[in-house]
């Protein structure tokens, strides 16, 4: 396969245009295409090519390191592919600027013997380079309207240059026109099919989960789970915030209470709107200005529910790859790194997050009587919504206490009735459930929310840490067109939880800190060392490049210690007249035929003295290549010798 002249340069220009690296593309194109005009070429040996391969490997590994450190992990493959034309530049330059038309790709790295190297059979690398440049262009995902015409033009050019010559050119052109037309409709059909299939498969998955009435991510909960969680001091979330962080982080919200369990009728999850490679919109634009909080959450299975501050409107994350949300705003990571770092932008004054529906005022039949009875003791019917909230809060703080022990279940028919009428003590889930349902008796739309409280600042980690025992439940009420947080759990719940912590917690915290550092390093989000590591990588790479380059230079020096370019000044030799005459008489030299062989042939067929003419030829060569030592007498002798054979004018 042959590459047409200027094809590599054009491909690189196309790459530069599509990947927003036009200047770089122009420079590389000029460098590569200049080889057509520069006549001087390098003489590179097989070992030199192998060293250049090693050099390219070093550049490649360096590029990978830099991309991992400085770009989002999600874009790693894409970025590496995009930069391939730059990374592989030394190899293609070595081929284009050397006297060889093929290069040897191999490595001396890892070979035990000095001279033993692993190597591939000689290959024309320029073609592979062009292909990779085209792939890099496609990977750039420019969504440009010029991509298809550009790629079609480049492909047509390449095919034209290598076409089958047994067919007429109009057959080729007609075929290509058909290909381009069908290709245009083909890619559009492909795009539409992909979108259709994706939509259909999502619908199928949703209906599957709906039919099974089971959400893999805890769409319903039961009492007690919070109690168990509270015993653990494991750090599960880290919150980085320049201002004071949000007090509560929402994980999920539920609206339907039945049989001592909260469920969510809105189990349908939709893909969150991806606005950029790593950015999602939770509400449509325009976005208000707001605060930013960075939350780092461990998702060992690389999927799960994400916690978020209330009123979040936009999120960005470098290690979150696919995200879904449901109507209630619960966020579900479908694909992520094991440690997800997410920037949440939120605004507490944002009026509407989502609008309540009939489920937010739904009261379970078997609890209705108890709830109405209790509500009547708390507020008057004609109290305002805000007054009702206030009275409810006072009611709980005056009559209820916080406990994690649920031993005395009481004489009532349900757990909630026991809590409200008999025991009057419980944990946050009971307070949240009671608040949510009591407010519904006053026709206030509410929902039950689970999540975590943010309260502990770690000096070691320089951020707020959220432990398992900080798991919390509260209520959100829709008042004056806005969801507000109503947390009636007595304020001392955190102190009670704290009393259960282990004395070894500081040790486990330190270990957890180290483990987290390692995890961050693994996924490449250890921001603090990025610049330092980038510099170290560049320095190490430069040292390696210098070592390889020095070896190249040294070998050149050893091979040609006193290399001086000899300049041959063209000489006007009388022998050329004889040569011209011989051509007239006997015809031109055959291709690759040596001069002496030709002279012998010509002399034998024309009965000329071969030895004598050969001697004249040797003199002629001396004049050509050693004119400095060619005396006037010798020149005269050569002229006389030649004139002897030439016919008189």
């Amino acid at each position, binding site marked *: *396969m042959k590459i047409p002249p200027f094809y590599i340069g054009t491909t690189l220009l196309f790459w530069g245009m599509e990947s927003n690296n036009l200047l770089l593309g122009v420079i590389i194109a000029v460098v590569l295409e200049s080889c057509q005009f520069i006549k001087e070429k390098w003489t590179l040996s097989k070992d030199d090519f192998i060293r250049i391969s090693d050099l390219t490997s070093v550049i490649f590994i360096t590029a990978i390191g830099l991309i991992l450190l400085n770009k989002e992990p999600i874009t790693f493959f894409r970025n590496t592919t995009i930069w391939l034309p730059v990374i592989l530049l030394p190899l293609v330059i070595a081929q284009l600027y050397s006297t060889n038309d093929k290069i040897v790709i191999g490595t001396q790295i890892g070979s035990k013997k000095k001279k033993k190297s692993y190597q591939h059979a000689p290959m024309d690398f320029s073609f592979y380079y062009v292909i990779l440049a085209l792939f890099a262009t496609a990977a750039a995902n420019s*969504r440009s309207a010029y991509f298809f015409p550009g790629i079609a033009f480049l492909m047509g050019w390449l095919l034209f240059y290598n076409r*089958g*010559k*047994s067919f007429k050119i109009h057959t080729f052109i007609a075929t*290509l026109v058909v290909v381009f037309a069908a*290709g245009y409709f083909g*890619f559009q059909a*492909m795009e539409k099919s992909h*979108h259709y299939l994706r939509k259909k498969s999502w619908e199928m998955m949703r209906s599957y989960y709906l039919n099974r009435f089971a959400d893999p991510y805890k769409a319903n909960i039961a009492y007690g789970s919070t109690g168990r969680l509270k015993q653990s001091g494991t750090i599960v979330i880290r919150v980085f915030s320049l201002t004071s962080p949000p007090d509560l982080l929402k994980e999920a919200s539920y609206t339907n209470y039945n049989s001592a369990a909260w469920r969510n009728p809105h189990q349908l999850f939709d893909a969150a709107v991806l606005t950029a490679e790593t950015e999602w919109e939770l509400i449509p634009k325009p976005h208000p200005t707001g605060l930013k909080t960075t939350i780092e959450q461990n998702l060992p299975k690389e999927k799960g529910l994400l916690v978020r501050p209330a009123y979040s409107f936009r999120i960005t994350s470098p290690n979150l790859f696919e995200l879904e949300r449901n109507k209630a705003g619960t966020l579900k990571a479908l694909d992520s790194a094991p440690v997800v770092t997410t920037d949440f932008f939120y605004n507490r004054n944002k009026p509407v997050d989502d609008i309540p529906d009939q489920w937010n005022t739904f009261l379970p039949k078997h609890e209705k009587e108890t709830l109405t009875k209790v509500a009547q003791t708390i507020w008057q019917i004609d109290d305002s919504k805000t007054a009702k909230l206030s009275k409810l809060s006072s009611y709980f703080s005056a009559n209820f206490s916080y406990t994690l022990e649920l031993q005395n279940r009481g004489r009532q028919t349900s757990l909630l009735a026991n809590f409200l009428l008999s025991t009057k003590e419980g944990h946050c889930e009971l307070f949240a459930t009671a608040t949510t349902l009591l407010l519904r008796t006053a026709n206030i739309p509410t929902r039950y929310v689970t999540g975590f409280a943010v309260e502990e600042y770690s000096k070691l980690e320089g951020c707020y840490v959220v432990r398992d025992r900080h798991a919390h439940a509260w209520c959100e009420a829709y008042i004056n067109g806005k969801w507000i947080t109503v947390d009636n759990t007595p304020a001392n719940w955190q102190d009670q939880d704290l009393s259960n912590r282990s004395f070894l917690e500081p040790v486990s915290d330190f270990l957890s800190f180290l483990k987290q550092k390692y995890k961050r390093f693994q996924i490449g989000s250890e921001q603090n060392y990025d610049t330092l590591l980038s510099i170290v990588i560049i320095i190490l790479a430069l040292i390696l490049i210098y070592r390889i380059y020095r070896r190249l230079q040294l070998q050149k020096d050893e091979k040609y210690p006193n290399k001086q370019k000899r300049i041959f000044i063209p000489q006007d030799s009388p022998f050329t007249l004889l040569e011209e005459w011989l051509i007239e008489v006997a015809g031109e030299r055959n291709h690759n035929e040596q001069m002496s062989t030709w002279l012998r042939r010509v002399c034998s067929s024309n009965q000329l003295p071969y030895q004598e003419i050969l001697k004249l030829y040797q003199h002629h060569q001396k004049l050509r290549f050693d004119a400095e030592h060619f005396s006037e007498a010798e020149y005269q002798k050569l002229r006389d010798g030649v004139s002897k054979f030439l016919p008189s004018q």
Partner: protein
Amino acid sequence: MTRVLYFIFKQSSHLKLYIDSRMTDSGRLFLIMAMVSCFFGLNTDRSMFFQFFPLLFLVLFIGFIFSLRLKTDLQCTRTLPETCIAGRAFTYSIAITNSSDKPIKGAFFKECLEHSIPQYQEFKQPLPEERATKRSLARLLKYKRWQTLRSITKRAQLPDMELPPIPSSFSIDHKVHFLPEKRGNMHFEGYKFFRKDPLGLFKKEITTKSQANILILPKLYHAPQLQFSGSRKYHQGGLTAAGDHGDSEEFISLREYMPGDPLKHIDWKSSAKTTGLIVKQYKNEYFSRYSLVLDTFCTEQNLALFEDAVSVAASILMVQDLGENVLDLLFVGDKCYTETTGSGLSEQLHMLKILASVQPKFDGDFSDLTNLIKGHAELLSGVMVILFSVDEARKELLNFITASRIPCKIALLCEEREQVEKELQQLGINTPLQLLEQDKIAEQLMSL
């Protein structure tokens, strides 16, 4: 497991052969591009490969359809010489006839070389180097073994030759150029003609059986004539089939001095009258007999060095003046061989043909070669030994040559001078050796 791997390798070789016979270089690369584009183009939101893929698929599809109707009605007659030399560009001519009633344009000619697939029995046996190494994944997968076995029979790669337009019912002469890579017999099964589809991606080969052979002689370097200080020796009963060279005690004539002639035969009177030394030539029992000893005992790791050793032996053999002397080539193959040339015996070309067929010996006892030399030692005026590794067995040979005081030259081929010098020191070998580094053979051989 081995049988499964053999099956996979065999089938993939057949598949590769089929693809090579149906697709051009461009076609194969377009196929790979199409597969990559298909894979990455599935998600149309993530990249632009989905715009690339339909184009690639369509050109391949249309090219394939065109290729089904391609016909090339040509015949060929080769004019092949008997031998060629490895490493030197070689040209032979073919006469191509277009017997159809239409002119043929854009046709290609391709030689159909023997395509040998290793047998299962060969594949089953581990390579000698594998026996010495630990178990590894590479050894388990046996890919290297397959590659090595395939490469043994591969002598040269003949490129596709594009032919000029051939008018109908017309014959043209064309030259085929190729570079023989490895010594040995190269077998031509037949030849193929093909044409490309309009897009240049697919082809349809028409194969014609026409068997032929060409022997690739070992690669030759410029080598010096060997000069030994030893004298000629008495060979009882002369040399069967020898010409009238050498001498008995019966004087025949005078001739110029040649290295190896005994000093006592110099005719000082005649020498004084001329510029060089003149010796008296006697009848046929005294002559110089040299030996060229080739080490054939090797492992897979130094197979390349063995090939170089054969080339060095061939190079030395070619430049010796064997008008007056006799040269024995000693080596061990399936048995011990002694081939003699010079003094009107077999020609040097015959010896080259033998060297072209020498096979490496992966097992066996090196002492066979030592014993072979011991058997000839008394008759030899000089010995040239070509080795490519050193060990105790070779040390014994070198010690014997030194002890028997036969004038000798020993060439040791190596990859790295420093490493071999260290090995020689460890083994305590003090015999003067000429080290020939693998990448500097041509220059170092001249100083032999």
